C-alpha cells in the first residue's frame, strides 16, 4: 500500500467551489487523495502528518499558458532591464535606470570574462523608460573595443552593438542603405540595429544563438528553477521546432527525479507543409509523458504591436506606420485548421492585432462548418486588441483566449501615446469583456518577453496599471478571485489539462504553489508582492531556498 502524506496548512485555497478553503490535503502517489479537514482525510487509512506548511498558504500550482523555455537560457546574458528581476538562482538583479548604469553593469561582467574573444551579450534594455536615450556604438566601445558586445532590447525588436560587433559582421563600412540601420554623420552605422532583419547578421557575433527559440538541458533546468520560485507547476513552451534531438533532451530532463515542472511544448507551424505538420504533431503526441505533454501546435498569424508588425484593422497604427506583417496566408491557415480539427489536434494561434484575430475567427468559423468539433478549445494567444464583437464571436465558436496581461504594464503607456492611441489602448487585453462574454480565459507573461510570475500577471489584470502608474482601462479590471482562477483552472482549461491540474481536489495532481501570504487577504495592489516559498509538484516538495 502506498504511503499517504497529509499536509496541514494555514489555509488551502482549492479552487474547488464545493469547498473553497480547507486546512489539510492528503497526497498519495503524487496525486491528491483528498482535501478537507484532518478528520475527513483520516478515513483513507494510515498517513504521515506533515506540518511543514503549517504557516503557509497553499494554492493549486500555477499554470502558465504562454511562456518560452528560453527564459532559462537568456540569463546567461547580462541583465540590462529597467525593472528588478529574479534570475533562476534567486538573485534579484536591480533594474538599470540609465545608460551609464547599463554600461557599468556590462563593465562588471566584462571584467569577469577570461577569454579575450568571448562576446558579451546583454538583454532586456528598454530606453523607453529612459527618455528614449540612444545607445551608440561609441558608448558600448567604452565597455570594450576588442570584444563584440550586443544588447537586445526588451521589445525584442532592436539591438545595440559596439564597433567590434559591426566589424565582425562586416557592417563597419559606409554606404549601407537599409531602413533598419541608421548612419551617423560619419556615414558609418550608429550601432543601433532596428528589426530582426537588421540585427540577425550581427547577433551570432555578439553572442546570441541563431535559434532564438532554442533551449538546452541546462537552460531547461534553470527554467524549472524559475517555475519553483514563482509557484508555477505546469508551463508551456510556445513554441519550438521540436526536432528529434530537442525532444530527446526534453524527455530526459523532464524525467529527472528533481525536475519540478510539467512542460507543454507546442510545435511551431513554420517550415513544414500542413500535412507534415499534422504528421509531426501526431508523432509527438505519442511521445508524451506525464511531465512532457507533446502534440499541440502553434500557428503565428502576425507580429507584435510595439514592433509595428501586428496586423491592425482600420484605422491602423496611431502614428501612421504601415500596417504590419502576415506570417501566414489565409489558405495556409485554413488548411492547417481543417486538418487539425480532422485529426483531433489542438491549436493555439498567435494574433496580436485585431485584423489578425479577425482572420483567425473567420477561418475558424469556416473550418468548424467543415468539421464540427465539440470542445476543441482552440485558443487565441495574446489577442491584445480584440473588441467586444470579436469576443462574442470567440464564444460562439467555442474558442478560448489567453490575454497578455503583463504587456499592459510594460508597454501600456507606449500603446496609449504611440501605437494604437488612447481609445484602443483602454480595451487592450480585455479580461473583463472576455469573462462577461463567457470566453474561457487565461492570462500570461510570454516569458522571457516579460518576467515569469503568475501572481504578478494576476496583479496586472486586477490593477491594470501601466509602468508610469496610470490605471489604463478601469472597465477591464477583474477581481482577485477571477485572476487567481485565470492562473490556475483558467490556463489549465486552454491546455485541456483542467481535469488533471488547476485545483486541489481528489484525483488531481498534487501540484501546489506554497505561499507565505494569502493572496485573497492582501490588498489587491499588493498581490504581486505575495512571497512564494516554493512548490509541490507531483507530490514532490521543492523549496525555493534549497534550489
Amino acid at each position, binding site marked *: 500500500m502506498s504511503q499517504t502524506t497529509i499536509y496541514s496548512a494555514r489555509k488551502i485555497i482549492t479552487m474547488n467551489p464545493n469547498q473553497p478553503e480547507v486546512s489539510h490535503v492528503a497526497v498519495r502517489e503524487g496525486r491528491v487523495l483528498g482535501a478537507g479537514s484532518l478528520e475527513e482525510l483520516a478515513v483513507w487509512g494510515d498517513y504521515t502528518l506533515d506540518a511543514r506548511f503549517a504557516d503557509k498558504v497553499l494554492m493549486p500550482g500555477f499554470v502558465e499558458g504562454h511562456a518560452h523555455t528560453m527564459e532559462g537560457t537568456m540569463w546567461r546574458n547580462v541583465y540590462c532591464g529597467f525593472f528588478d528581476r529574479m534570475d533562476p538562482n534567486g538573485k534579484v538583479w536591480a533594474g538599470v535606470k540609465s545608460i551609464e548604469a547599463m554600461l557599468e553593469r556590462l563593465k562588471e561582467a566584462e571584467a569577469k570574462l577570461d577569454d579575450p574573444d568571448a562576446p558579451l551579450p546583454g538583454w532586456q534594455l528598454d530606453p523607453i523608460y529612459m527618455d528614449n536615450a540612444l545607445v551608440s556604438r561609441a558608448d558600448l566601445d567604452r565597455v570594450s573595443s576588442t570584444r563584440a558586445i550586443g544588447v537586445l532590447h526588451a521589445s525584442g525588436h532592436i539591438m545595440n552593438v559596439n564597433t567590434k560587433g559591426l566589424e565582425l559582421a562586416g557592417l563597419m563600412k559606409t554606404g*549601407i542603405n537599409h531602413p533598419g540601420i541608421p548612419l551617423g554623420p560619419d556615414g558609418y552605422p550608429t550601432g543601433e540595429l532596428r528589426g530582426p*532583419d537588421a540585427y540577425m*547578421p550581427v547577433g551570432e557575433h555578439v553572442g546570441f544563438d*541563431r*535559434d532564438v527559440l532554442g533551449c538546452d538541458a541546462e537552460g531547461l533546468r534553470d527554467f524549472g528553477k524559475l517555475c519553483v520560485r514563482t509557484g508555477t507547476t505546469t508551463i508551456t513552451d510556445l513554441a519550438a521546432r521540436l526536432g528529434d534531438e530537442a525532444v530527446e533532451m526534453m524527455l530526459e530532463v523532464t524525467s529527472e527525479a528533481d525536475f519540478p515542472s510539467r512542460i507543454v511544448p507546442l510545435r511551431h507551424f*513554420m*517550415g*513544414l507543409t500542413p500535412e507534415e505538420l499534422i504528421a509531426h504533431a501526431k508523432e509527438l503526441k505519442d511521445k508524451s509523458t506525464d511531465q512532457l505533454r507533446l502534440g499541440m501546435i502553434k500557428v503565428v498569424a502576425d507580429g507584435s504591436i510595439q514592433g509595428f508588425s501586428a496586423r491592425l484593422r482600420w484605422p491602423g497604427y496611431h502614428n501612421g506606420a504601415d500596417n504590419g*506583417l502576415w506570417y501566414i*496566408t489565409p489558405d495556409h491557415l485554413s488548411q492547417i485548421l481543417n486538418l487539425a480539427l480532422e485529426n483531433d489536434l489542438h491549436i493555439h494561434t498567435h494574433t496580436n492585432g485585431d485584423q489578425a484575430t479577425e482572420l483567425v475567427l473567420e477561418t475558424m468559423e469556416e473550418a468548424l462548418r467543415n468539421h464540427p468539433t465539440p470542445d476543441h478549445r482552440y485558443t487565441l494567444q495574446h489577442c491584445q486588441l480584440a473588441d467586444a464583437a470579436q469576443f462574442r464571436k470567440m464564444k460562439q465558436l467555442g474558442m478560448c483566449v489567453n490575454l497578455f496581461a503583463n504587456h499592459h504594464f510594460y508597454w501600456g503607456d507606449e500603446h496609449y501615446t504611440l501605437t494604437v492611441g488612447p481609445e484602443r489602448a483602454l480595451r487592450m487585453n480585455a479580461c473583463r469583456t472576455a469573462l462577461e462574454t463567457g470566453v474561457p480565459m487565461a492570462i500570461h507573461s510570454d516569458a522571457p518577453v516579460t518576467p515569469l510570475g503568475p501572481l504578478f500577471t494576476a496583479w496586472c489584470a486586477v490593477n491594470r496599471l501601466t509602468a508610469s502608474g496610470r490605471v489604463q482601462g478601469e472597465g477591464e479590471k477583474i477581481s482577485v478571485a477571477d485572476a487567481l482562477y485565470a492562473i490556475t483552472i483558467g490556463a489549465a482549461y486552454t491546455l485541456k489539462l483542467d481535469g488533471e491540474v488547476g485545483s486541489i481536489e481528489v484525483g488531481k495532481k498534487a501540484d501546489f504553489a506554497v505561499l507565505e501570504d494569502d493572496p485573497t487577504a492582501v490588498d489587491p495592489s499588493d498581490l504581486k508582492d505575495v512571497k512564494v516559498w516554493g512548490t509541490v509538484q507531483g507530490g514532490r516538495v521543492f523549496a525555493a531556498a534549497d534550489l
Partner: protein
Amino acid sequence: MKPLPVTVIGGYLGAGKTSLVNHLLRNADGLRLAVLVNEFGALPIDEDLIVAQDDDIISIAGGCVCCSYGSDMAAALSDLRKLDPAPDHVVLEASGVALPGAIAGSVGLMQGYSMDGVVIVADAETLQANANHKYMGDTVTRQLADADIVVLNKVDLVNDKTRAESEAFARSYAKNAQLLMAEHGALPPEVLLQSFVERNRDSGTGHDTSVFDSVSLSLDSPCDPAALGQLLASEELDLVRAKGFVRDADGAIHAVQSVSRRWSSEAAPEDSPIGLVCIGLKPAFDGDAVARKIAELTG
C-alpha cells in the same frame, strides 16, 4: 571569395513563382542555380528535372539544387556556401506573404552575398482581385512596390482589356520596375538573373531575342563607376539590366551592374574583362542611342 549573387522571386500565391523558377532551371544551360524555397509545399520542382532527393536537398539536372529554408534564411544561405561544387547564383523564392524588399535588405547585409534584384511575379488574371483582398491586399501592392522587375504572368489567359488593366495597375505600384509579360513563367534567363548576362557575355552566346535586345560596348576610356551606374539605372536609358567592368580615372577596375532602377558597383580584380552589356526590352530599345549616351559620359 566572390560574392554569391541572390535574386529574390516574390509575389502572391498562385502568381506562378514556381513555374518561373522551373523555367529558369530548364534553361540554366550549365549555370549552377541554387533555389531556396520558403518551405516545401507541393513539390516546388518539376519531377522530370529531379535527379535525387533527400530530406534537405533536391538535386536537379545540370548541377542545380533546391533547398527549403523554413524560418532561418540566413542559415540556409550560409549552408549553400558549403556546397561543392559551389553554386553560381541563388534564386530565393519568397513565401506568398513575404515582403521581398525586407529579404533583399537582409541579404544585402550578409557577408559573402550580393543582391541581384527583386523579381515579383503577378497573375494578370487575379492581380487586381488579390490587391482588393480584405486581408492580403496591401501585402500584394507592397510586394509590387519592392520590385525591380515585375513579371505579369499568365497573359495568355486574359483578354486584351484585362491585360492592359493589370499592366496599368502593376505599373502604378511598381514605380521602379521594368514590366515583362509572360506565359507559364517563361522568360529568357538573361533578363531575370544577372549571372546569365555575365556568362553569355564571356562565352559570346546569346539567347532568345524575341523579348529583349542588347548592345555590347567596349568602354575604352576611363569613367566614374558611380556616374555610370546612375546612368544605367536611369529612366532615360530604361534598361532592364546592364553588367560590365570599367576602369576609373586612377586605373582601378570596378564591376558595375544595374537592374531597372537599382545599381551597384564594387572593386573588381585586375584581370576582369573591360566592357559592358546593356539589355533592354523590345520594341523600345535602341542600342545605338544607348551606346551614344554612355559614350557622352565616358567621353
